[in-house]
């Protein structure tokens, strides 16, 4: 028995539990539906990419869509049959909008793909966490508590201090985790042990609300003798929120935007643990889950249903009454009313709650807020909900954000206690979506400006190139006539010209670094691409005079100016700073110029530190800077950009005046740019 010191989280509510209706009977397998509607987006992140074609025969457990990108997971055929369609279908989402799905006509044979356990222990022993992660991704294992976060991404490879297993199940009506723990405790415990091994956790805590004594008993029995600590936690909603459970069990508070791994904690739902166990020990992909069918139904209880089973099929199986006026997907506190029952079950579907006026009466009309503060007393995120409501209502979204609107977990405790029956969470959702929309608009505007700047640069460059080509032809004739000694003298002269031009340009990088830092991470890509194009253009130009042996004083300065600021990625900067091996003297000179520029830049920005070496850190810093002072930053960036342009123009004029023969130096000067460009591509 555990004598662990538990911690309280602020607020919380205790709504009537209503779990008795569904938690009394064993988990039954749901019948096989004639059709499975399997959504490609059953996880947070990019939808999976289909691997099958219409008409193709698929086996149960066959991967029918693969993960696309990092934040994604695979999707499998839940039963054997024929692919009927790959098309958008109404989804189990508050909007009800159609989302890409693979529709399978089941053949009733339930023919499995050959399954085999994987040697994950060998992989782990070999230090190949990557292989295990990829395997879990390809088995489609995601968080089954409702968040649908791809589980493999939680295995970061580092050692954890505490592994928290979430069996709290705090929402009223839902009992799928309760039944799972009662009936399959052994497998869950095996799964926990497995995850503990994977995460090298020094302690493992399983939090279960004390309104589930049978589940606690079953889990304690199964975990007997192991280091797994089964902890009964007080029944208070939302103790099943990952942040809240981590707080209860460890006392640590994971702020919004912070990863719990940074605090040495990771949290998995019991259903997820079970799925991970089935995947790693039995080679079974995630093709089914336990769903609580409850509310206004004849046979409330829990079923193990194949993913993709149409929801109306499940409700029919449970015997939904005519009084059902809507069906809630998830619990009554955080679920949503399904716009359509034609959607297929997804990995998030822990409960179908048939709602009627009798069991979940409609809230009376909203009354004015009297700032009684009941919401603040109930808020587990320790926000001031009445203020956020006020800001959202008066469209002061900036102030709402300042007051940590995005720390809101939308648990609904505030709206539950509000004596004025204000639908507070709706106001927060509205404010959040407005802020997101504004951010998207801003990004689009930034992108447009970026493109405009580049277009101007390109037009100017084309004009110059044309003029240079003409000049080159004339100069070539002249130079042939000139003597070789004279040419050597001129070379030295040109070197100083380049240096002067570069020095003038040194003002530019500082400005552009600010410009880069204001953009969202996704913007950096765009900027880098544009920069790369610019560098490429410069390189191309550099090639022309080299072969034609033509003087071109403008190019080095432009190339230097454009290349340096446009390389926020340190990799590029590094490669650019590496002298080209072929031409030592020239390379050294280029290196020296670059160093001078870097020093000038550092002096300008006031920080003598080199550009951050770690791209992650840089990204985080950018994010912080963006959040901290968005408008100020933007203004500074615009100004810096303007200044940089002026500096570049001045440099160009200066260089033009200085001389016309710099071919050798220029060649070496531009080589790093070219290399950097290659690196990028």
């Amino acid at each position: 028995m555990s004598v662990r010191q538990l911690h309280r989280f602020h607020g919380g509510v205790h709504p009537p539990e209503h779990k008795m209706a569904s938690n009394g009977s064993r988990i039954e397998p749901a019948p096989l539906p004639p059709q499975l509607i399997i959504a490609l987006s059953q996880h947070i992140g990019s939808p999976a990419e289909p691997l099958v074609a219409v008409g193709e025969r698929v086996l149960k457990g066959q991967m029918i869509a693969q993960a696309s990108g990092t934040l994604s997971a695979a999707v499998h055929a839940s039963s054997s049959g024929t692919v009927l369609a790959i098309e958008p279908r109404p989804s189990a989402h508050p909007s009800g909008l159609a989302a890409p799905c693979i529709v399978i006509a089941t053949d009733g044979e339930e023919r499995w793909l050959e399954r085999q356990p994987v040697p994950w222990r060998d992989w782990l022993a070999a230090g190949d966490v990557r292989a295990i992660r990829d395997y879990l991704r390809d088995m489609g294992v995601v968080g089954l508590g409702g968040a649908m976060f791809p589980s493999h991404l939680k295995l970061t490879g580092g050692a954890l201090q505490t592994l928290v297993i979430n069996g709290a199940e705090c929402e009223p009506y839902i009992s799928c985790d309760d039944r799972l723990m009662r009936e399959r405790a052994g497998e869950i415990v095996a799964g926990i042990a497995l995850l503990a091994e994977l995460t090298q956790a020094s302690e493992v805590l399983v939090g279960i609300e004390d309104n589930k004594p049978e589940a606690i008993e079953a889990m304690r029995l199964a975990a007997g003798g192991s280091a797994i600590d089964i902890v009964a936690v007080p029944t208070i909603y939302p103790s099943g929120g990952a942040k809240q459970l981590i707080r209860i069990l460890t006392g640590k508070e994971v702020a919004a935007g912070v990863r719990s791994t940074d605090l040495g904690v990771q949290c998995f739902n019991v259903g997820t643990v079970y799925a991970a166990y089935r995947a790693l020990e039995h080679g079974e992909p995630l093709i089914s889950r336990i769903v609580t069918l409850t509310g206004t139904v004849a046979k409330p209880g829990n079923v193990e249903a194949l993913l993709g089973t149409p929801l109306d099929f499940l409700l029919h199986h449970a015997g939904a009454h005519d009084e059902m006026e809507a069906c809630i997907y998830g619990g009554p506190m955080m679920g949503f009313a399904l716009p359509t029952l034609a959607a297929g079950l997804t990995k998030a579907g822990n409960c179908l709650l048939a709602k009627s006026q009798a069991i979940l009466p409609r809230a009376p009309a909203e009354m004015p807020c009297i700032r009684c503060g009941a919401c603040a007393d109930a808020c587990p995120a320790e926000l001031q909900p009445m203020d956020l409501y006020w800001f959202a209502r008066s469209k002061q979204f900036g102030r709402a954000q300042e007051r940590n609107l995005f720390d809101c977990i939308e648990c609904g405790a505030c709206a539950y206690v509000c004596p004025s029956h204000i639908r507070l969470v709706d106001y927060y959702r509205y404010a959040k979506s407005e802020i997101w929309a504004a951010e998207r608009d801003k990004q689009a505007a930034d992108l447009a400006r970026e493109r405009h700047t580049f277009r101007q640069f390109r037009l100017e460059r084309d004009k110059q190139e044309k003029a240079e080509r003409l000049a080159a032809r004339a100069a070539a004739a002249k130079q042939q006539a000139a003597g070789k000694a004279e040419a050597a003298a001129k070379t030295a002269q040109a070197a100083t010209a380049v240096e002067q031009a570069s020095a003038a340009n040194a003002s530019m990088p500082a400005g552009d670094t600010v410009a880069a830092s204001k953009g969202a991470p996704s913007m950096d890509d765009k900027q880098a691409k544009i920069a790369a194009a610019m560098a490429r253009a410069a390189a191309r130009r550099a090639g022309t005079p080299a072969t034609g042996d033509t003087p071109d004083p403008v190019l080095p300065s432009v190339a230097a100016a454009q290349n340096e600021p446009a390389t926020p990625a340190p990799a590029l900067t590094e490669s650019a700073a590496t002298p080209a091996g072929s031409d030592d003297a020239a390379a050294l000179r280029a290196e020296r110029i670059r160093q001078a520029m870097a020093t000038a830049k550092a002096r300008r920005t006031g920080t003598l530190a080199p550009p951050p070496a770690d791209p992650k850190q840089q990204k985080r810093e950018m994010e912080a800077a963006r959040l901290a002072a968005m408008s100020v930053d933007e203004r500074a960036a615009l100004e810096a950009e303007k200044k940089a342009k002026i500096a570049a123009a001045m440099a160009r004029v200066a260089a033009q005046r200085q001389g016309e023969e710099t071919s050798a130096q220029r060649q070496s000067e531009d080589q790093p740019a070219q290399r950097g460009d290659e690196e990028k591509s």
Partner: protein
Amino acid sequence: MKTSPFLIEPTPLQRVMFTVAVALLPGIVLHVGVYGIGLLLQLLLATATALLTEAICLKLRGRALQPALTDGSAVVTAWLLALCMPPLAAWWLVVLGTVVAIGLAKHAFGGLGQNTFNPGMVGFAVLIVSFPAQMARWGAPLVLPALDLSALDQIRLILAGALPPGVGFDAIASATPLDAVRTALRQGQMVPAILQSPQFGDIGGKGSEWIAAGWLAGGLLLWRQKLIPWQLPVGYLGAVVACSGLAHLLDAQQYASPLFQLSTGAVMLAAFFIVTDPVTAPTTPRGRLLFAALAGLLTWLIRSFGNYPDGVAFAVLIMNIAAPFIDQYTQPAVFGRKGAR
């Protein structure tokens, strides 16, 4: 209803207001016992006026009468004003005060939840500034050997301003304990001597100490029901006790004891029913404590050095102005960000 949460706790606004009214009952009963049934008529007049004014204002603003008319907020406002009135004051005083409270302080600011100032205290302040003489005419408590008016005579006095033949108001009147102390101090008497007068009981004014106990009982009920946060009454009473205690320690001849302060005037009523008005008080825990403490300080200052019978109304109104700023600067740290602040 398409979005979560689908479950709501059934504590509607009406019940909150109803509980506040119930919590006022012990004090009201004791008040009637001490000063006579005049108060009941004041309460009735205020309630009727409040509902009528509320209805007219809603109509003028183009709002639906329901459910605003029956949410109980207007009744609570009316009662708090009536409870501050001299029980035998003429009917038009409380009617005027209520019209100002509901019409000006509440609806002109946008109705329930939008008002900056405590409506009842605005009504009271307007009356005490405009009609200081009438507002100072308190009947003597029944416990004192003065001429007692029958219930009917009290009603006649309030409604028609008519005293029984041959009786002047002075015969039935008595200065409030606070006024008595202030006047005597001005005449050069010392506090211990003043309190020897038969008007004073063991700790406060004879009778008024019982009423204060009634408000305290009701306030504890509200606190138990979690309808008022502890910071407000504790901050308020704490400040009154601290200020008066310090002054009393320094000069017991000039300053009455903290117990006297707590058991006279409207301090107890204010601590649990007026300062605690959620609409006009700050909402952060530290903010509430600060707000209430400053209101307590002002109350003591005004009643000790000012010219008004009591300091509660002005203290509360002044602090109402500061409530939004107090909120602004006392925002609590949110989950997971406590170290950062």
